Structure formats: C-alpha cells, structure tokens
C-alpha cells in the first residue's frame, strides 16, 4: 500500500477549543504526524476538557456534560473520556511539557528542529508571551511553516481581542442572516460554522504551504483570522450591499424566490422534514408524489412566482400532508419523484442511517480507557490510499516516551527528571481543578 499523502510531515499542534483542532484533524487523517502539546499543570483554553476532574455529581447538573461521557461515568481520568475531544483528536499524538518552566522552551526547541509545521489558534498575545514567534521558530528551523489562527488575525486594531466563533460571526454579519424570520435577534441559533470552517481552510492553507515549500524550499507564516475567514463565505450579501446598497434579509428556512421551501412536522415527537421546490418540474413531482390532491390545482400555486407569493397557505397544505408521514419514508417518496427532501436528522438518526452505514462513515475504534465505540469518520474519501482512524484520540501524555526518548533523544535519567519536574505525566497536577 502506498504511503498516505502527508506521511513524513510532522506537525506541532498548539491548538485549543474547536477551530485549531478541526485543522489538525484533517492533516492527521491525511497522514501527517500531529503532536498535540499539552501540560499537566493547566488545562488552559482546553480542547481536551474545561473541567479536568469533573465528578459524576457535577456532570448531572449539565445535560451536555452528562451525554459527553461514556455511560455517564467520568471514570478515573475524565480528561481522556470526553466526546468533544475524542471525536476530533483521532490520528493525533499527545505530549506534555510545562512551558512556564525555562527548560520547557528548550524541549520545544528540540521538537521544532525536527518538525515541518506549527499550528496554533490562541489569542494573539498568548504565543508572543511564551516567546513562540515565527522569528524564533525560523531561527531553529528556517523552512518551518507557522499557521496562526486567532480571531482577528495577528495585526490590525482588534488583533489582541479575544473572540469565539459566536462573537466573530456576530461581528462579521453572519448571525444577523440566520435564525427565525419572525423572532428577534435574541433567538439566533447558538451554532457556529466559523470554527469548523476556519479549521478546514487552515488545513487547506497548510497543505498549500507545504506544497510550495517542497517545490521551493521556502517556509512561511500564515495568518488566518477566524472572523475574516467566515466573512469570506458571505460574498453574496456583501456584494448586495456594495453593488446595490441593500441589506440582505435573513431567509430563515425559506428561499428568497421559490416555494415551498421549509421545515415541516412529520409523525412522531419533534420529527421534521425539509422540502425544497425551486422549479416547476420539482413542483409537478411533488404533486404527483402526494397523490395530486385538489388543492394542488389551485392557480395560486401554478407558478414559481405565485407559489412564493402564497407560501403561507401553501405551507399549511403541505403540513397537513407531512404530519401523517414518517420523515424517512417521505424523503424516499419525494426523492423518487425528483423532489429535494430530507429528514432533519438527530444524532441517533445519523448513527443508524443506512446510507452512512453503506459508506462506512462511522468507524469502530478501541480506546484503552473506554472500550470499543463507533466514531465519526473521515471528512472525505481517498481511492488509492484510503484514509481511516489509525488510532483513537490520545490520552493525556500518551506519547511522551516516543517524543522525549525516540524523537528528542533524552536519556532515561533525563526523562525521570522531567517527570519529577512536572513536565511529563498522564495525570493532571493536584492543583488543576
């Protein structure tokens, strides 16, 4: 079997929360050796956990926390068991080092000398305070690629502001273009594509820089601002403003010019189907699929324009049909008539979905502290070097021996010393909550 595309590339992963880990997940999947840098002295703005030693009692106060641990059990080392971290940290390694101690930076320096890329998504000042700058890296490894992805980028008036996906999207105008049309902005959904999108585009940027480096021998610095990056998908509303002076309206679940286009209730509790009809052929398919009831002949629904004008009454009719349908059966029926339709799938629907099953999307993985579970799989499929979960998410400090001894050539004595000095370990220090 030929090598994976990024086999032989070593990436130092300083990423936190969501956007950064989303980038290194894709790079690891494509074969890069991704080494997460963590510390047993602090959880920081953790991707791994927000509460290292969470108890069962604490978990019960938050439904999201409760669902995140296998069988509702935090176990002996809860920090190795959380769903958020374990979902996106497959194919990554983890070493621990305390960068607050002077020798921490020396350890990192040795790793930099043997690496190709360093990726981080902290607030801009964080890396600077630690002394981990592009200039510092370049002195150690002249052709290094540094990828930085702070909220607002590394320069400009807001360079040092802190942000999350939520605040970035509010600022760059995506939030105002989402949510219910008939509710005020307090109800904009708390779901943020900015993080995932920045991670994906950072993986693209990193591979593009690696490609250029392999051709020319030159490394570089990439400044990917989370906020700007998600703004880049808003070309249409931005140009509507610059070309026509218009503020695009939030379409909600509707379409700006076609109908029906929406989310309709089906049989069962909190079950829904999306149906979108954007032309006459799809409309005719829809009418035929539901048995051509007389209301479909109403001239109010005869053209795309009139359907759009009369969509409130149209939606009432459609609901009266969907309410009697199973959301998956209705998808199959409508799709067989050429109508774009699909259920709003909850996590259980997805895990049981026959299409995903046929494509082998979920992969069974054995994690040494959790046992075998099925994990969300690859972002894309490669034909000649199939990508897969080669190893589960790393436990805290799981790869210390490999990194310190094999890569950095520290002796057994030095390794023991680093353990005593609080760099190396698989448990958080007693003071970490």
């Amino acid at each position, binding site marked *: 079997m030929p090598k994976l595309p990024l086999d032989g590339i070593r990436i130092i992963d300083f990423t936190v929360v969501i956007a950064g880990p989303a980038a290194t997940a894709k790079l690891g999947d494509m074969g890069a050796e991704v080494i997460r840098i963590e510390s047993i002295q602090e959880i920081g703005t953790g991707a791994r956990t927000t509460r290292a030693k969470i108890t069962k009692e604490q978990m019960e106060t938050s439904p999201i926390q409760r669902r995140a641990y296998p069988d509702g059990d935090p176990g002996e080392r809860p920090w190795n068991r959380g769903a958020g971290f374990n979902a996106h940290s497959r194919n990554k390694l983890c070493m621990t080092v305390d960068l607050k101690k002077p020798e921490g930076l020396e350890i990192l320096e040795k790793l930099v000398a043997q690496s190709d890329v360093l990726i981080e998504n902290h607030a801009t000042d964080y890396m600077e305070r630690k002394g981990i700058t592009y200039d510092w890296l370049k002195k150690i490894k002249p052709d290094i690629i540094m990828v930085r992805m702070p909220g607002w*980028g590394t320069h400009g008036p807001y360079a040092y502001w802190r942000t999350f996906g939520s*605040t970035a999207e509010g600022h760059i105008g995506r939030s105002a273009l989402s949510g219910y049309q008939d509710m005020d902005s307090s109800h904009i959904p708390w*779901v943020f594509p900015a993080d995932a999108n920045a991670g994906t585009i*950072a993986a693209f940027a990193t591979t593009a820089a690696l490609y250029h480096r392999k051709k020319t021998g030159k490394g570089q610095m990439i400044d990917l601002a989370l906020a700007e990056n998600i703004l880049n998908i808003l070309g249409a*509303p931005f140009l509507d403003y610059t070309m026509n002076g218009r503020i695009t309206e939030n379409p909600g*679940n509707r379409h700006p010019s076609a109908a029906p286009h929406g989310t309709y209730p089906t049989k069962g509790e909190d079950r829904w189907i999306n149906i979108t009809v954007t032309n006459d052929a799809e409309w005719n398919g829809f009418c035929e699929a539901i048995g051509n009831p007389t209301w479909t002949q109403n001239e109010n629904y005869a053209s795309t324009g009139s359907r759009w004008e009369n969509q409130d009454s149209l939606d009432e009719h459609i609901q009266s049909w969907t309410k009697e349908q199973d959301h998956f059966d209705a*998808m199959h029926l409508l799709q067989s008539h050429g109508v774009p339709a699909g259920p709003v799938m909850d*996590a259980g629907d997805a895990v049981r979905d026959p*299409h995903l099953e046929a494509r082998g999307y979920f992969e069974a993985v054995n994690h040494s502290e959790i046992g075998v579970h099925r994990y969300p799989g690859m972002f894309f*499929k490669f034909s000649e070097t199939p990508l897969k979960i080669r190893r589960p998410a790393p436990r805290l400090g799981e790869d210390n021996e490999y990194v310190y001894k094999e890569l950095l050539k520290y002796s057994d004595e030095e390794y023991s010393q680093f353990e005593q000095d609080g760099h190396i370990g698989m448990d958080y220090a007693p003071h970490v909550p």
Partner: protein
Amino acid sequence: MTTEMALEGVRVLDLTHHYSGPFCTKLLADYGADVIKVEKPGTGDPTRSIGPFLDDDPHPEKSGLFFHLNTNKRSITLNLKSEGGKRIFKDLVATADVVVESFRPHVMAGLGLGYDELKTIRPNLVMTSISSFGQTGPYAEFKATELIIYGMGGAMYNAGVPDREPVSYGIPTAVFQGGGAAAAGTMGALYGATFNDVGQHVDVSIMETLLGSVDRRIAALLSYEYSGEVGGRESMGGGFATGYFPCQDGYFVMAGSGNIMFPRLVKMMGDPEPLQDPAFLTPAGASDPDLRDLFEAVLIGWSMDHTKQEIIQLGEENGLICAAVNDMEGVFNDRHLNERGVFTDIDHPVMGSIRSLGRPFVMEQTPWKLRRPAPLIGQHNVEILKDLGHTSEAIVQFKQNGVI
C-alpha cells in the same frame, strides 16, 4: 519583481457549478493555480443566474454570487456531450494536475469521463468529486439543497427554540463548508500525487463534511454513541449570560457565563446589587429560571442605555468576550477589516469596479493576489484552444458545431 504564489504551476480543470465546487476551486485559484472553468455553452454555470445582481439586472455577467465565487479563474465553454467537446476536454486533462467536478455521481462515468478513464490520460491525476451524499450508497443520486443537506448532515436538529421547528443556517453556509473541505482534501491529494506519485479520486460528500464538522455536530454524534441520548433544542449549555441581547441600537453577543467571565460582566455593569448574590456562581444557579429572569432584567436595563460600540469597548477593557451583531453596512465600515485589507476593489469588464471580499487568509510569503476577476462566459476559449494547438479556423468550426 513578481511575487510567487503558493500554487503556481498547478493546473486545475473545473467542472463545478453552484456553490461548493466553485468555492473549492476559488481557493485553489486565489493562491495561484491556473483554474480553467469548463462551462456549458450558452447558459454557463447556473450561479450566473443567481443574485444579487448589479443594479438588480439579472444578466449572466452581473451576478454578485458568481463574481465572488470565480475570481482568478479562466472560462472555456465546452459541450461535453459532443465528441469534439470530449476530445478537447481530454486534451486539457493531459495538461492538468487536478480535475474537480460536482455533477451527480453517475454523470462523469456516463460521459465516458470517469476517474478510471481520465487517469489513463494523465497518470497521478487527482480527481475530486463533490456531491451532496458521496459517490456511493443509497442516497448517492438524491437531490439536495442547502436546507436539505444541513438538515441531514449538520446541527440543524439542535438549532433553534424548543417547541418550534429547527432552524437553518439562513444564508447558504453548509455548501461552503463542503467546498472548503473539498479544497483541503484536494490539496492533500495533490501533495501525495506530486511528491509520492500516487494519484487519487477524492470523494467528498457534503453531508459527511457536515457530520464531521467540528462545530458541535461531531461531539453530538459521539455523545449519542457514548450515552444513547439525543440533545434537543434546549438552551445550549452556555449559561444565561451567554447569548444575544438587545441594546440601544441593536443587539450584541457575548460569552459572559462561568466563574471567570461572570464576575467581569458584573464589574463591567458597575457592580449592580442584585447580581452580588453568590448563588449566581453555583452550578445550580446557572440553571435557575428565577435567577435568569433577575439577571436578564438587570442586564437589559443596563444594555438599553448603551450602544453596541460602547458595550464592545467596555467588554474589551474588562476582558469579556463580546461583539456587535452587525449587518453588512457595519462590516463594510469596520475599521479593523478595512485596515487589514480584507476588502478589494475589483475591476470587471461588464460590472465596472466593485468593492468585494479579498483573501480568506494571509500567506505572508506567497500572498493572495487578484490576477483576474471572475471570467465572462467562454472568455478564454480562444487562448486555451490555441494553447492546445488549434487554429483560428478550427475554433470557428468548433463554435459553428456547438462544441464550444
């Protein structure tokens, strides 16, 4: 001195349309690849008929959406159903590193242009196929739109208000996420093809790029696997000081909950007496509806006396994470985005000069460059065909025969 670009020398044949595919190839073009967009003679990419249009004139060269998604590309029109069109396409494949397409899965093989055929023309070819549900499986040929695909792959079920229908991303977003993932996969495959001599067919299912989206969806899937429980559209666990709130001139968004942020927020508001209750900082307090009501009354009483700009400024000074909920006018006038050069004035032969969005990220040593605006339909037919060795007479013939 001309600045080099990261993907200089890479040639991409772009058979994509609508959103996802063009966004993927735009990323490649924006960082230096020679992207040849292959369009259907006559109508071209259907995105040319999607607004907004300059001056609301629905002209195929005046779509703002097309303008944004196709910067730095060249356009050739080819009838891929004609033998002549196929011949030209195959000749182009021989010169290309990457083919990206976004038809339904049966189409390319049906045209005799599947991966197996194309790789015999160009060894180590990377071919990326972007589709709603992937190249295989029972839904492979299903039709989808932004709303359908987000409902099936994304976090829609968990988005919105309990007791109402789930709510979408609003403005198209999921389709861009799929295109970005396709660009990352294409680039990884191209690296392997160029330096390890392994070509690749990359199968991108937009549904799967959303399922794996590290935005809460992926965690929700694994949480279900771990616990057997599905989360609803209940408050998403941010605590009641986290969310969107009204102020004097609109709305602002903040993450103000928790033991670190909440005290900063209280201090920012001038330490109002009702929020001094230590119960606010206990886990039970964070889900107590009476405390929520009390908090919101105090916060909104305060915020309605302040503008977005004042709140953001105070938030920044107090170490809070907050921002304005802006519309595009606010974005257009934003000092940070303007100073960083996010916006670019682009000259277009039909539309004139339009202020648009430039680079999605900064590559400091090989910067983003605007080499050309989005192409007119078939704008580069002659130069591309001449490069393949066709004479002016032959090109006229292609045109008469409906090949281009």
